């Protein structure tokens, strides 16, 4: 496109996927992410790709596994309950070292929960979106523009390290509209998919893609090799944004839509003379621990803000070796805090620090 258009976050993910060469999309409708499927259904036939509504989330993730095994750039999307259903398939995809992109436009949980925005799948996304020793590369966009940009990043990192990448968004980002410009992630140094099961044509040995190991030592070795790749991801692909951290007494830590609310609150607090800054993790795994550790040298207090009951708090405490107090403010169940609410919390903490 090369010019700005006005899109919903969900649509921006879908368009960015197509522009980044995604030719297969398997989905199943669930609010608040159904626009991704709707958009794919309209656009994929026009670019020679395939959008298929599977009979369930479980079917969709297994179709993703098949397309990824054949070497295609492939994506699926869902919202919280649907992502839980996909967990088994995600673990198999990890076990097979297949690249793909999974989107979770979070809604309130647990269970069927609700359809309003949430960030309550942080634990699931960053700790165990499936069984076994595994990580996913997890990005948390905070704008419609980042919904597009980070979709490109997710595909590149997935291909480069042969890992599933997860886009952890939320209903607000999925539904809200902002201007967006598309730019394709151009990576020429991506390895050939020599492992793909796409027909050997009698020219090479057959490729077998499998997550079952007969010998536990073989399985252990495969996991260790995968964890060496995870170390490389942590080394090369950790992303975060810092805002007014240098002189901050209070450092807020927030990602996704919550970081937008925090930015408004931080500007209001700065206008009142409170020295507060923000570290926004853009990748949730790997977590930007080094940035937090550095901030702990000067900051007096860390304040985590999320749309859940404080799932990121422990990651912040570990990152800073519990060197500073870490407090939490958030709303959950589909309720969004206002910037005024967040500002009131900042003022409360600032009052305590002054004593």
């Amino acid at each position: 496109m090369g010019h700005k258009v006005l899109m919903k976050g969900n649509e921006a993910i879908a368009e960015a996927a197509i522009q980044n060469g995604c030719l297969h999309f398997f989905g199943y409708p669930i609010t608040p992410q159904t626009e991704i499927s709707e958009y794919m259904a309209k656009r994929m036939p026009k670019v020679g790709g395939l959008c298929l509504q599977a009979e369930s989330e479980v079917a969709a993730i297994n179709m993703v596994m098949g397309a990824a095994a054949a070497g295609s750039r492939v994506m699926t999307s869902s919202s919280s309950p649907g992502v839980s259903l996909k967990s088994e398939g995600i673990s198999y995809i990890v076990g097979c070292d297949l690249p793909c992109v999974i989107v979770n436009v979070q809604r309130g949980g647990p269970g069927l929960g609700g359809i309003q925005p949430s960030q309550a799948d942080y634990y699931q996304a960053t700790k165990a979106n499936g069984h076994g020793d595994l990580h996913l590369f997890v990005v948390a966009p905070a704008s419609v523009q980042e919904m597009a940009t980070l979709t490109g990043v997710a595909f590149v990192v997935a291909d480069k390290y042969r890992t599933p990448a997860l886009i952890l968004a939320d209903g607000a980002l999925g539904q809200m509209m902002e201007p967006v410009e598309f730019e394709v992630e151009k990576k020429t140094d991506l390895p050939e998919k020599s492992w793909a099961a796409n027909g050997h044509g009698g020219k090479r040995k057959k490729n077998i893609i499998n997550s079952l190991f007969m010998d536990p030592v073989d399985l252990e070795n495969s996991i260790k090799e995968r964890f060496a790749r995870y170390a490389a991801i942590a080394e090369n692909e950790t992303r975060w944004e810092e805002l007014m951290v240098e002189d901050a007494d209070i450092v807020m830590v927030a990602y996704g839509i919550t970081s937008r609310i925090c930015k408004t609150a931080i500007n209001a607090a700065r206008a009142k003379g409170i020295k507060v800054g923000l570290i926004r993790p853009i990748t949730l795994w790997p977590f930007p621990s080094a940035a937090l550790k550095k901030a702990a040298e000067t900051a007096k207090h860390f304040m985590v803000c999320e749309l859940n009951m404080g799932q990121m708090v422990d990651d912040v405490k570990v990152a800073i070796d519990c060197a500073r107090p870490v407090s939490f403010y958030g709303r959950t169940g589909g309720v969004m805090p206002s910037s005024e609410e967040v500002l009131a919390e900042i003022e409360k903490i600032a009052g305590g620090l002054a004593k």
Partner: protein
Amino acid sequence: MFILPISSFFPHPPRLLIVAGHFGAGKTNVALNLAYMLKAEGREVTLIDLDIVNPYFRAADAEDALRAAEIQYINPPFANTNVDIPVLGAEIQRVFPMLEQNPNASVIFDVGGDNGAVALGRYHAELTRLGAYMLCVENAYRPLTDSPEAMLENLQEIEAYSRLRCDAIVNNSNLGEETSAEDLLNAMPTMDAFAALAELPILFTTVCTPLRRTDLQHSLVKSPVLEIQNYTRKLF
């Protein structure tokens, strides 16, 4: 500066309006603006949220403000809750006899995007009998309707689903809060070409504050210009 009353934009007194158009084109915001403007002219306004597509960002966000402005507001019984079931409330039915009895009444249907217009089918007989005036709201900066041909396809889809014909186009081209006057002018040729293809008039081109009507005093702008506010709920 003299500003035309909203009624004068329409060929007849606007009594029964349908605001349809592409998903995300800004139908709800146009409908809210029309409701407030018609109310300001002394009409008795009822706004009906017929959107069975969108889970968030609906007219229900403005419910308190609408009631404060004494605009009757009929929304789906479970709008903005976790009940993910689109329902057309029985209350909607009462507006049709009201329109027949009260010449000062204006009813606005805020319809869901694209095939969301299928919800109008339920009221087809009344809408036809009472001569509903259907607007097709389009935004040239929406990627799936960024050409005259794509917009025409969208309009035809809406007409097929609603079994009604659109009467006029609303040019609601914008890039959200980043919109510049230049962006609005750049969209004009596309919208004019769409209107020509559809053989429909552009009833008005919207300009959202802080931009003003005067920002669109340009030879490219052939349609009337309507200044509107952005009533979309702000999250941060």
